[in-house]
């Protein structure tokens, strides 16, 4: 399998999860106590990591420097940082993992929820390749190793490559550089270490995600990149929050991917428009509500209202259906829910017949869902649709019946018997393949039903389900009572929830579970299960603890767990009803007040760009609005080398970040481009520093900032030309865009020029979105919000267009989110 190089990525370095409503658990193995930083704590961190003595000494010395240095008095307001309340170290797992297999499932799930494979899927739609993160991870790692590239977590690199590590560590940014560099030097943990050997070019961007997830957590990653002579590398760091699954009717979508004016299903089973998506930082108790059907568990904050029938004191454990039906469900804050209360699972009511779905076609699609695959036949240069059956006589009959059905629809198909004596039905009909792709997608993990199918009349859906179960299902019939238990297994999470919905429309609440990987026998075949979702339901059940009323199911809560949480939570505002479905269950939009506590992100990034090498370092940050983001980034560029910082800062309470480039030898070139968005209660103090230390060096700075809703952005730049550095060219431009009168923008450019033979240009503009511009766009039909959004996106475009595609999309979406006026 070949995967386009540009879409490959390495997923590294995460610290657990930080989202609303996930089943991942944050199993911190070791966490430093609160109460301020001490030498004992630094020793504990170093011991824990089994570091060499020189590193411990380095850390302790850095601690001394940190304690001596005063807080910086310039820039932003740092008074909200309480060093005593910060956890300086948290180890999410026993040891940093190197192989994808070793990465715990929790973390893999986090990536899944980060939407990375999703983005890939979108990108790859229509191409022949299938995205499997494992494969990519391996092929990429193999390719890197073959070229002699080291790409490790910084902790591992210290153990594995002690010499090279010691040679470069702390050389570009020494501990005494500034207070926060000293702090990082004392307590650093995580980050990436990259060494690119001479002449090696890494074409695809290497990527990492960093996130703060525990209460009052400090994040102190340390990144060191060395590009040896004539080499090149592009490194991307991002921080992207994610959330719970909500119902679009035909499938579940991550809550944070929901956009204003999208249609989602609410507690009445009908589609309504989303008015706004809101995120807020939240610190406190997070409840996990576990109903019958464990995989439908969801997490929410204690204030978040859930549609529910509370169990009355005099009710028996198996309360009569009559009593239950007589009680009207009400919205009750999640914190007041108890085990045994009934929450409400709602199925969408929209039904629309579509004549192309005949019984025959539904039969084919049902079997395709279970047994089908689509692959590219290289010798024929055609897509092939294949259905794999077992070797038994009954399976042969099924295969022959399928052929007849396909032929009846006017398509060609043939049957083959492979070596293992399994029957396979193959068709090359483009029309049929398109139908399968459009309505069922492909790949075991990605199969899902189209909206059209999810809205078909239930009789038609039954036909599809019946045929699907022929392949992936099994039936157990009880002897004493004529009930029929039906089980189906699928690797696709989306499909599992869609099947549950279809079965619910048929009148039964199905149970979804996710057993550990195991072997199972289905249809007389042994199947090794890897993360198989089991959808299970019983027809004619004698007693059912789940009761139905129209399109609602009253589902008892089996268990409620509570955990500590610190991070983003998401919330939707929906037209008319203001409710939405989380994993199928109705909840109200949350009205809790914004709550905040302060965290600290203080990273250090050191980069060495040797003769003729090129490094690009791209950052997209959207920290929670209570994070102090104080990062020191610096690169040394030698003869004819090129360094490029591309820095996008959203979110955070205060960001102070000035990526620096020291141009050390003739011919070196440095460029810093940055974009900052300051919303309400935010201060983005960002900029760039360029030091021309040698003659014939060039530099360029492009800084763009957007301020909204009394947000404040500052450009702080230093351009220095040292004595003897002749024939210098430099171009600086800073543009600020103010979205309203309450916002603020300042520019603090500093120039220290000690040489006369220099060509330096400096431009600065501050513009306010004008009434006239808005009026112009509105006169063509855009709302005021859309018009402002268009202007902001247009302003940011020169920066955005330089990002890798999936990041460009993400940044556009984030800007849109900031512009809807619901954040902060």
């Amino acid at each position, binding site marked *: 399998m070949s995967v386009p190089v540009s879409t490959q990525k390495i997923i590294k370095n995460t610290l657990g999860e930080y989202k609303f409503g996930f089943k991942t658990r944050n199993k911190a193995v070791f966490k430093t106590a609160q109460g301020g930083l001490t030498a004992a704590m630094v020793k504990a961190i170093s011991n824990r990591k089994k570091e060499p003595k020189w590193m411990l000494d380095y850390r302790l010395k850095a601690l001394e420097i940190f304690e001596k240095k005063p807080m910086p008095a310039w820039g932003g307001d740092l008074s909200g940082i309480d060093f005593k309340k910060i956890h300086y170290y948290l180890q999410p797992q026993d040891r940093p993992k190197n192989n994808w297999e070793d990465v715990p499932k929790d973390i893999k799930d986090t990536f899944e929820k980060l939407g990375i494979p999703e983005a890939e899927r979108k990108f790859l739609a229509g191409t022949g390749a299938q995205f499997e993160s494992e494969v990519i991870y391996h092929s990429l790692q193999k390719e890197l190793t073959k070229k002699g590239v080291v790409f490790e977590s910084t902790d591992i690199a210290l153990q594995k490559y002690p010499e090279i590590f010691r040679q470069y560590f702390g050389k570009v940014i020494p501990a005494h550089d500034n207070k926060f560099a000293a702090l990082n030097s004392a307590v650093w943990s995580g980050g990436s270490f990259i060494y690119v050997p001479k002449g090696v070019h890494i074409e695809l961007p290497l990527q990492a995600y960093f996130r703060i997830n525990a209460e009052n957590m400090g994040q102190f990653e340390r990144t060191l990149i060395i590009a040896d002579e004539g080499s090149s590398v592009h490194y991307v760091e991002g921080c992207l929050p994610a959330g719970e699954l909500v119902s679009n009717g035909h499938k579940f979508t991550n809550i944070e991917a929901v956009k204003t004016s999208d249609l989602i299903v609410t507690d009445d089973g009908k589609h309504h428009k989303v008015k706004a998506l809101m995120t807020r930082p939240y610190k406190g108790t997070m409840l996990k509500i576990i109903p019958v059907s464990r995989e439908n568990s969801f997490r929410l904050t204690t204030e978040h209202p859930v549609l529910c029938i509370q169990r009355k004191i005099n009710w028996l454990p198996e309360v009569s259906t009559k009593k239950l039906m007589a009680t009207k469900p009400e919205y009750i804050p999640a914190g007041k829910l108890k085990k045994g209360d009934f929450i409400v699972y709602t199925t969408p009511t929209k039904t629309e017949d579509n004549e192309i779905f005949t019984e025959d076609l539904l039969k084919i699609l049902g079997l395709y869902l279970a047994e089908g695959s689509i692959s590219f036949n290289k010798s024929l240069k055609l897509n092939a649709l294949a259905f794999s059956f077992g070797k038994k006589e009954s399976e042969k009959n099924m295969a022959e019946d399928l052929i007849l059905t396909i032929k009846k629809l006017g398509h060609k198909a043939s049957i083959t018997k492979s070596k293992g004596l399994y029957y396979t039905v193959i068709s090359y009909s483009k029309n049929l393949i398109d139908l399968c792709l459009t309505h069922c997608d492909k790949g075991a993990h990605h199969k899902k039903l189209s909206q059209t199918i999810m809205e078909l009349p239930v009789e038609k859906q039954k036909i599809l389900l019946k045929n699907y179960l022929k392949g992936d299902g099994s039936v157990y019939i009880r002897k004493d009572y004529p009930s029929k238990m039906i089980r189906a297994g699928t690797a696709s999470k989306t499909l599992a929830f869609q099947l549950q919905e279809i079965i619910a429309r048929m009148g039964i609440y199905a149970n979804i579970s996710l057993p550990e990987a195991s072997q199972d026998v289905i249809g007389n075949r042994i199947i090794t299960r890897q993360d198989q979702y089991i959808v299970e339901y019983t027809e004619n059940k004698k007693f059912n603890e789940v009761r139905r009323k129209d399109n609602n199911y009253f589902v008892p809560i089996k268990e409620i767990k509570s955990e500590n949480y610190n991070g983003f939570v998401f919330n939707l505002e929906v037209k008319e009803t203001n409710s939405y479905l989380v994993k199928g269950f109705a909840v109200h939009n949350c009205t809790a007040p914004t709550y905040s506590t302060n965290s600290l992100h203080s990273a250090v990034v050191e980069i060495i760009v040797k003769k003729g090498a090129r490094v690009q370092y791209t950052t997209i940050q959207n920290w929670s609005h209570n994070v102090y983001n104080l990062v020191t980034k610096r690169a040394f560029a030698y003869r004819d080398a090129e360094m490029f910082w591309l820095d996008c800062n959203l979110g955070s309470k205060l960001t102070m970040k000035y990526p620096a480039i020291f141009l050390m030898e003739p011919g070196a070139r440095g460029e810093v481009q940055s974009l900052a968005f300051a919303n309400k209660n935010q201060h983005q103090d960002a900029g760039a520093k360029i030091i021309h230390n040698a003659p014939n060096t060039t530099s360029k700075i492009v800084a763009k900032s957007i301020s909204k809703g009394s947000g404040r952005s500052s450009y702080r730049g230093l351009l220095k030309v040292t004595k003897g550095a002749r024939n210098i060219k430099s171009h600086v431009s800073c543009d600020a865009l103010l979205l309203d009168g309450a916002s603020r923008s300042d520019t603090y450019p500093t120039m220290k020029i000690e040489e006369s033979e220099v060509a330096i240009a400096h431009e600065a503009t501050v513009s306010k979105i004008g009434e006239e511009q808005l009026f*112009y766009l509105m006169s063509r039909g855009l709302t005021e919000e859309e018009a402002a959004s268009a202007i902001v996106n247009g302003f940011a475009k020169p920066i955005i267009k330089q990002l890798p595609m999936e990041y460009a999309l993400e940044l556009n979406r984030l800007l849109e989110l900031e512009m809807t006026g619901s954040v902060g």
Partner: protein
Amino acid sequence: MNITMNKPATNQAKKISSHERPTKVDVLEICDLHANIGKLKILNGINLTIRSCEIHAIMGPNGSGKSTLCNVLMGHPKYEVVKGSAKFNGKEILELDPNERANLGLFLGFQHPLEIAGVSMGNFLRLARNLNLKAAGETKQISPMEFMPMLKETVGLLKMDEKFISRSVNEGFSGGEKKRAEIVQMAVLKPKIAMLDEIDSGLDIDALKIVAEGIVETFKKTGLGVLLITHYQRLLNYITPDFVHVMAKGKIIQSGDKKLALELEKHGYEKFPKVDNR
């Protein structure tokens, strides 16, 4: 003087073939419209009715309120309407946001079109067109595949280079290019009533001809109603108006047909007793 002349449309309207003639006649009816900017009175009782397939021209000295009339009708927030009404097909529009007016089918060609950096002309116009359609209850949106050929054709009609489509809206356009781009916008957004505010100012004679042809072409194709604001008769050599109005001190003081424009050209505004220099 109240002017609501409703004689049948002449000239170009006749050239609209019957099957292209809009089945429904759209009417913009302005009644006793008064508007201020701050405390300064600018419009002092405008009465005017514009229908589909009609071309109106308003002439008048500087400061008579011509541009203000357009801006007030489009909903510029700077102006305050103090009295009167403006109804589009019977619906009062003065309370609506500019985008809602646009979605009803009103268009304003700006005297000084604004530059929007980073927003490409093509994407912007498709977005606007789709918003117009959505507001009109259309469920289907125009895909880029459908939209771009149409836009290219229109850009060609205005003798502009295709690369304007991918350039930022009006950014770095010359004065003449901006005016041509306004007509491109009008042609693809297909409004029902278009107000063109000094669309001829700053154009050389060739560009004037191209712009005028663009207007006439759109008029013939869609049968929209047009309100031209102009200082000069020369535009009217290419577009024959059905009605010519003379405006002064925020009022329409005389209306007539194209002969009125010629008279104005010959004698200037002195001939009109009610026009004095403020």
